[in-house]
């Protein structure tokens, strides 16, 4: 459910180049689900910044974000003890039930990787077996390889070959056997995963106004002529409803 509350920053530390891990302590009564996101108010910026939840427990949540502009830069300079006004419980999250009994692969690229960690923890708790395929452009952006390795077999790929295999995530996907995927990352990567075929769920990034369905700023066309608001009816869409050619359909 959606809640607005203040959260105290417990840690805000660099994980890799331009990548930060922040732990927020506050009310966790919004029934969080893997794949959901929060929307953070940052002083001096009019719109909130939507950031996916990496993982959570009874009294805190971790987010991992990239400095992508002035807002996230300001966020990276905040200190433990400071408080943030946060909208929680946004988005649909992943539907684990659709993957039951399947050979699952988690496919993440860059800052699309964090929500897959929370998903992995939930899948492990449910007794599922799965593999993670994690990709970055360069080795200095990589993070959470040990964390993933602790919960599942983990394959790493970088465009520069600095860590893991040199290449892209689909190079690994062609080598392994799976029949259901959960993926989050940049649009070209999502499309490449989708184009390999099979069933799965894809989590999309979008430029949002509100984060909860009010402004229709992040609408995306879906298969069959309809559309979905990524913030409210996403960010996770099923592979049987996504459309990648939609921008060209205008």
């Amino acid at each position, binding site marked *: 459910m959606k809640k*607005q509350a203040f959260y105290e920053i417990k840690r805000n530390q660099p994980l890799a180049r331009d990548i930060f891990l922040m732990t927020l302590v506050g009310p966790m009564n919004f029934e969080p689900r893997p794949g959901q996101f929060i929307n953070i108010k940052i002083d001096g910026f009019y719109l909130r910044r939507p950031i996916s939840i990496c993982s959570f427990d009874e009294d805190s949540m971790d987010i991992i974000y990239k400095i992508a502009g002035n807002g996230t830069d300001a966020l990276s300079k905040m200190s433990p003890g400071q408080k943030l006004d946060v909208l929680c419980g946004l988005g649909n999250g992943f539907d684990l039930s659709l993957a039951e009994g399947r050979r699952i692969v988690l496919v993440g690229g860059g800052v699309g990787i964090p929500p897959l960690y929370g998903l992995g923890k939930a899948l492990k708790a449910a007794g599922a077996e799965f593999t993670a395929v994690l990709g970055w452009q360069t080795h200095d952006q990589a993070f959470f390889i040990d964390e993933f390795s602790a919960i599942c077999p983990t394959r790493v790929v970088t465009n520069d070959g600095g860590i893991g295999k040199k290449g892209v995530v689909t190079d690994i996907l062609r080598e392994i056997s799976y029949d259901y995927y959960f993926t989050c990352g940049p649009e070209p990567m999502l499309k490449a995963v989708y184009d390999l075929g099979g069933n799965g769920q894809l989590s999309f990034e979008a*430029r949002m106004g*509100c984060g909860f369905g009010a*402004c229709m700023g*992040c*609408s995306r066309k879906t298969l069959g002529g309809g559309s979905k608001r990524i913030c409210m009816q996403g960010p996770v869409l099923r592979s049987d409803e996504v459309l990648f050619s939609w*921008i060209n359909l205008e």
Partner: protein
Amino acid sequence: MDKLGVTLSGWDLENPIIAASGTFGYGYEFASWYDINILGSISLKGTTREPRFGNPTPRIAECCGGMLNAIGLQSPGVESVISEEIPKLRSVFKKKVIANVAGFSVAEYVQVAALFDAVEEVALLEINVSCPNVESDGRVFGSTPESVALVCREIKKVVKKPVYMKLSPNVANITEIAQAAESAGADGLVLINTLLGMAVDPATGKPIVSTKVAGFSGPAIKPIALRVIYQVYPNVRIPIIGVGGITCADDVIEFISVGATAVQVGSQNLRDPCVGRDIINELPQKMDEYGIETLGGIVGRSHR
């Protein structure tokens, strides 16, 4: 008259705070944030006759003191709004609403307005004239007194409910357009719609929003909205709903002082989903502080 109550063309509102069209979805999206029945009313998302996806994304950009949007009238179409969205809203909101009517031809405006006119939950029709006239020169209807008057007159011929024209500030003389709307039979005005603006990525030089230029809204436009209402108020006899950058009770009092009868809260809903409730709770204290007994008593007091 009670302390917060206001009346728009015979429609009594418990308070003057209305959620602005395009910033509040179909209303029910906010029911998980607070009990929206506290609001005076809600203006629904702008509605066209046919379903429309709207503009390509990105449709949103942030800027200093506000934001740009180019949603492009995403709409499921008027029939779906009436058969699906309004019933969903009715389950969480018991008051009457404002229907925001959009169109790309005079005939479309008239048809959408007529369909909403027959809906019990709709108290008032708000006509968004910031759409291009695709059957004429492609300029927005709101850009000339003649085209605003034409849309207004044709709608008034077929509807019974009050018609309020929501005017664009992107014109040379908005008072002239407001007077043309009044002469054409408008029951009221909604001032102002967004200002045309732009945001550019400094690294690439490319516009951020897909449509290049987009509607600018947020606290930064409040002085312009106040100025427009102040200029129009003495030149018309019909009521004005003020909108543009309102974020707090002081803003509401300022808008009413320059001539608004009621107000709409827009972009701030996207930043602070509970802002409507918070303003309503704050308003009586601010009125006491300034010695204001009723909001009806201070309409236009800046002119006295």
